[in-house]
């Protein structure tokens, strides 16, 4: 137990990023900063996803000479989270892009980027 496993580091970093992102989304008034906050949450989640599949000392999930079928389940890193993360990243990108587009439009129409000025409808 001398060194922290890689997965623990990414996992805690991921959660850290998520919390920072949430803080950003909930506290910062500037819309752009809120979007940055969302991006951080997204990134944090991606890191968490990857680390969930990690096995300490594991190897790439390719069945060849170094890994045989019998032990594959315990030896190889789960490939699925990594695959899923790719999709998630794409989606996150899409959402961020839409958010930014909205930010631009809001700025055009309202000349402000403060979320507090965006309470046009309520009750």
């Amino acid at each position, binding site marked *: 137990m001398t060194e922290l496993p890689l997965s623990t580091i990414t996992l805690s970093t991921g959660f850290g990023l998520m919390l920072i992102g949430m803080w950003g989304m909930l506290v910062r008034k500037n819309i752009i900063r809120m979007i940055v906050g969302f991006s951080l949450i997204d990134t944090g989640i991606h890191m968490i*996803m990857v680390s969930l599949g990690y096995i300490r000392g594991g190897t790439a999930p390719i069945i060849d000479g170094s890994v045989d079928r019998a032990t594959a389940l315990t030896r190889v890193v789960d490939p699925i989270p990594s695959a899923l993360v790719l999709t998630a990243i794409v989606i996150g990108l*899409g959402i961020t892009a*839409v958010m930014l587009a909205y930010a631009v439009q809001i700025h055009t*129409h309202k000349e402000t980027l403060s979320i507090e000025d965006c309470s046009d*409808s309520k009750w």
Partner: protein
Amino acid sequence: MVEALSNPLNLVVVALGVGFLLPLIDRSSPALARSLFNLALVYQAALPILWLFWLANGAPTQEIQTAGISPPFSINLRFGMEEAFFVAGVNLAALLGGWYLTDLLRGRAAAMSVFLILTMGVDGMIMTRDLFNLFIFIEITAIATFGLLSLERNAAALTAGFKYIIATSLASSFLLLGVMLLYYLTGTLNIDDMQAQLVLVHGPLGLVAMTLLVAGMIVELKPYPANGWGLDVYENAPPGVAAMVSVGVSAGALFALYKILPLVLPFLSALAAVAGVTFLASNFIGLKQKKVRRLLGYSSIGQMSLAAAALVLLTQLDRGAAIPLVVGGLFLNHLFAKAGLFWLAGALKQSDTQDWRGLRANPRLLALFGVLLAALVGLPPFPGFWAKWELVMQLSAGGLNLWVAVILLGSLLEAVYLFRWFGQAMQASKHEPTLSGRAHQLPVMVAVLGLFAAGHFAAASFGVDALRVLAPLYIGIALMLLHSVPARVQGLVSLVIVGTYSYQVLPAQDGINALFGAMLLGGGLLMLVAGLYRGDQRLGHYPLMTMLLLSFGGLLQAGTSLEFFVAWEFLTISSYLLLCRGRDAAPHTLSYLIFSLASAFLVLAGFGLAYAETGSIALAALERVEGNAALVLSLLGLGFLVKAGAFGLHVWLPGAYAEADDDFSAMLAAVFGKAAVFGLFIAIMSLGVKGGGTDIVMYVLGWIGLLTAFFGALMAVFQEDLKKTLAYSSMGQVGYMVTALATGTHLGWVAAGYLSVNHLLFKGLLFLVAAGIVLRVGQREMYRMGGLISNMPVSFFGMMIGIIALSGVPPLTGFGGKWLMLNALLEKGWYWQAGFAFFASALAFLYLFRMIHTVFLGQRKLAHKDLREAPLALIVPQLVLVAVILAFSVQPTWLVNPVAAIMADYLPQTLEVHGSLIKSGLGYWDGFMVINVVGAVFMVSLLILLLLSRFMRVQRVKQFNIVFAAERPERPETTHYAYDFYSFYERALGFLVLPRATAFWNGVSEWSHSLGSGLRVFYTGNGQTYALYILLYVALLYFAVGDSV
């Protein structure tokens, strides 16, 4: 080829393909792009509908695999009956929505493709069996929604869209994290596989995983109070898009919730609570809302949470078999009705509900509007009605009575704000709401047709003989086609229909049904004839009257409580709409409808409880209720009492009875009121004589009836308005029937039956006389009339017979009622009650004398010198009623014997009849002899007058021979003795009739509205606050469930 075209996966493939092609094709040929878009929408809608058909005919559920590998190693989608149903609904809405959005989408190929992809996203949410794939489809849907929301480029729409994005992306982040944690725990993403591995989901991490998954799903369903962002979008998005969000996206979320429920069993109670709170809160807050689209937003959220609550509760109760009917019904109902309303709201371009005034100038639009609202409120024949019925039955059977109360209360609140809106649309206004484009109307029409079709189908799938049960409605609608035919011809057609129907139905009835059948249908036909006095085109009058009368038949023929309830609701609808026809009825229609619905809901709750105990909805099974008998009797009794206008619950009655069209007032008071008495009869006959707790209920009912009789009479005394006097009088008279029924003795029931028949006769007579007076004089304030006896002698005669029959003075029929009732009360040992009944019946003399004197006797107003007698169409039914009254007066046994025989089926006969002599345990009464003695004595007196009087050049007294008591004709209320006629009585007892009941109900209304405005303080409009709510929701969910796990 067919196989390839019919693959459900095409729903995804085609949408994606066309979606990406559209912007390219648009470059070269916008028209082609447009056609392709339309074609794709049609294909998307047609495919699942075809599949529904195939699946119903035995095709197996389609398991669609991808990548050539079987699950759980690859993503799989399922396309079974449930999926096909939801997909078909959503895609149909998309097709109509696309049609509706024609203008907005014109020349915007990108928007078209986004619209297609949105549809595809929702389809995917419904079909996929893979959690991560579900997440993907949710995100696709979300991004597409964001895109569509930006079609409207104004500040409010954009900020609303941004708030929506923040909230949903936060929610999907949680969902993603939850999915991944579950994968980590179970090693699979396949829902079915995960369900098999559910044991692995435990401990703190398992709880976190489930919490995140549930939170992600629940936020999609817009739970209160973390749903302000959703409301902002409903309010500001283009209505076509809002409709898609409300109908399509929510449906996807609902179905997704349905799929993940087995994975999150510990959360069921929390989910139900969230849905329940949201349902109730939305409807409370809706009360305060004036903006049309936000109002629809509240209604949307309410409806979807109701569906979610139903889903969760039925799962919890392990009554999955009911889910398709309930959730499917609610979904379909919401789909058509809410989308239709959003489209209508968009077409009318009026943001405030008040600005819908004047819509009545366009009857077709008004009809569409009304149908959509009726569907939302859950009136028959629409699918929501059947769903709510089944839901209430299942929840009652499961013992969830509190939930039944929540659902009924919420539905009632929803009815309040929706029909307040309808009332506003019914008001006349100089400016009419502007309309845009046919493309905006046609989808609404299709939605309405869809509602009818779905309703009929739902009814049929309930095992109900839909054609028979829904016939009143269908015949009414068919008669609407005759709207341009002269009114009297329409009237004759109605008469023929109802007459034929009665001729077929009545002979088949026996017992209490025969008695009330004769009253309801016979009396109704007579009132229908009376209606012929008006030659003007009253749009909808005869169709609605026909529907009303046929619904009476529905009550009689009902074998199950469901059929009874359908007929009951039909009565509510038709009478409400007929009431809306009244010239000044507008302020009273809403309270009429609300109290009617409250009555219906109480009855429904009662039926539910009965079902819970007996497991049967047959009306005959009511008798088998034992344990809950007192409660069921209270609920049914209270429900029918509301409709009968019992004391404290009567506030709707005077306005409705007085302001309805004059012939319809007669119908309402004389005939329709008997439907409530009929209901009471059924409830009390089945449940009232079981002893135990029901005795207490019956005792209370007895007092309620007396208080009703007393206060009805006392309030009638103080009215200036002729029809209001009659209205309060009706209230009072029904009170006697309630009391007589509540005795639970044979004699009491005979009395109640006799009183019902008699009330029908004299109150119909009096209201028809009033109709003639109002027609001729054009006013209803009695003190503005006088001396009309010389203009309208037949009407005077009618009223005289009517008031004698009402007052209970021998020898007319009224005395029989009093005699039977007092005998029943005394035999029962209800002595105080008997004394009270005496007092109440004496009060009737006051208003009766005032009525006949102020209108027909006294001084005639100069302006009324040349008035003519009432028209023949009014006089003939009056004379018929007079004839029947006289017949029963001459030989009361003609009425008493059959009624006593009917009641003897239920309780042992206590009346002895020898010839014309009727004997009770205490006294005796020979009506035939009484009328002979009275007649003889009267003739003797008349002879004395004629023989002893010495007439000499008799002159008719001129009006000015008599003092006018300083009357100022132009302002009679300042000096006329007939104004405030019983002022001294008001000084003595007026404190009893301060409008406390009205004040109470106003208080309830105000309190509900305050609660609504208190509940909506959470909606600050700030996107960050909304995000915070979502976060807190997750935390709350975690701790709430974490504690219990």
